[in-house]
C-alpha cells in the first residue's frame, strides 16, 4: 500500500464527481491509496505533451487527480469506480501527455475484506 503521509504539495482533483465520491471513500480508508485530502484543491488540470494545458484541449489527458507541483506533478491518479482497469488507448494517451517525471497511479476500490 502506498501511503502519502508527509505532504508539502497540494493534491489537485479534477471534476465534481470524483471529488465527492473519493474524498468520502478515501477519508474512510476504503481505497488503496490515501490522498492528502487536508491539503486539497479543485482544479481543472489537463496535460498535453507534457505541458499543463486548458481543460478540454483536443488530445489532452485529464487525470482525475494529481499530487505535487501543478505544472509537473509527482503522481497522476486515475480513480476507478467501475472496472478496475486502464484501457490501452488511455494508457498510451497518458504516456504521451503526462510530464516525463509524473508517475501514473491507478486507484481502485478495495473489494472483499
Amino acid at each position: 500500500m502506498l501511503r502519502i503521509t508527509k505532504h508539502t504539495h497540494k493534491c489537485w482533483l479534477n471534476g465534481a464527481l470524483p471529488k465527492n465520491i473519493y474524498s468520502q471513500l478515501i477519508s474512510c480508508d476504503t481505497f488503496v491509496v490515501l490522498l492528502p485530502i487536508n491539503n486539497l484543491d479543485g482544479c481543472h488540470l489537463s496535460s498535453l505533451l507534457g505541458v499543463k494545458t486548458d481543460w478540454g484541449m483536443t488530445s489532452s489527458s485529464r487525470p482525475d487527480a494529481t499530487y505535487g507541483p501543478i505544472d509537473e506533478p509527482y503522481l497522476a491518479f486515475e480513480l476507478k469506480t467501475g472496472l478496475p482497469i486502464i484501457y490501452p488507448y488511455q494508457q498510451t494517451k497518458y504516456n504521451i501527455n503526462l510530464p516525463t517525471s509524473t508517475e501514473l497511479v491507478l486507484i481502485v476500490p478495495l473489494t472483499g475484506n
Partner: protein
Amino acid sequence: MNSKIIREIYKSNKNFSHYIKNGGEHIFVFNKSSGELKLGITINVFRCKVSTSYWASPMISFPFIDPIVFKFRDENEDSHINKKLQGATDSYVQEVLENRINSLTKAVNELVEIGNFYHFLKSRLNELGSFQKANFYLLCYFVNKDFNIYDEAKEILPKLNKHNPITISFIDFLSILKNSEDERMDVFIKKIEIGNKKKWEDLLTY
C-alpha cells in the same frame, strides 16, 4: 461567475490592447507589449472559483500550441480572492477583480524590457517547469550570445516529454550550441521569431 463582468473590466481598463477568450480563460494583452515580448494577465473562471495570473511570451521561444509561454500565479492570493468572492454581488466581484488586475498589471509593467524579463526569469529559475527552463535557455542565448550554456542547458533534456515538438526543437538548439555554430543559430532563431510573430499576429487579428 458571469463572464460579462470580465469583459466589462477589460473595457474599463486602459492598460490592455487586446482581449482573447479561450474556453474559460480570459486573456488580456498588455498595451506596452513589444515586438519582442508579449505580456498580459489571464483570468480563469471555473464553476466555483477564479484563478488569476500574469504571463509573458517572448518571440524568442520554442513554438507550441499554447501561445502563452510563461505564466506566474500566486495561489495564496487567489485563495484569498476566492474567499472574498463567495456569495458576493456582481459589483463587489468586479471591484475585487479590478484590484487584483491592478496589482498584476504593476508586476507586468516591470517586465516590459526583454533584458529585465530575462533577469526576472533567471532569479526564478528554480521555480520554472522543464519546458519553461528550455525556453529560458533559448532566451539566455539570445540575450548573452554565449554558447557556454550548453552544459547547463543539456541537463534538462531528460525531463522533457519526448513527444513534445518543443523537445525536438530543443535537441536542435543543443546541437547548435554544442558545435558553436553562429550562422546556423542565427537562422534557427530567426525562423522561430518569424513563426511566433505570425502566430501572434493571427491571434490578435482574429
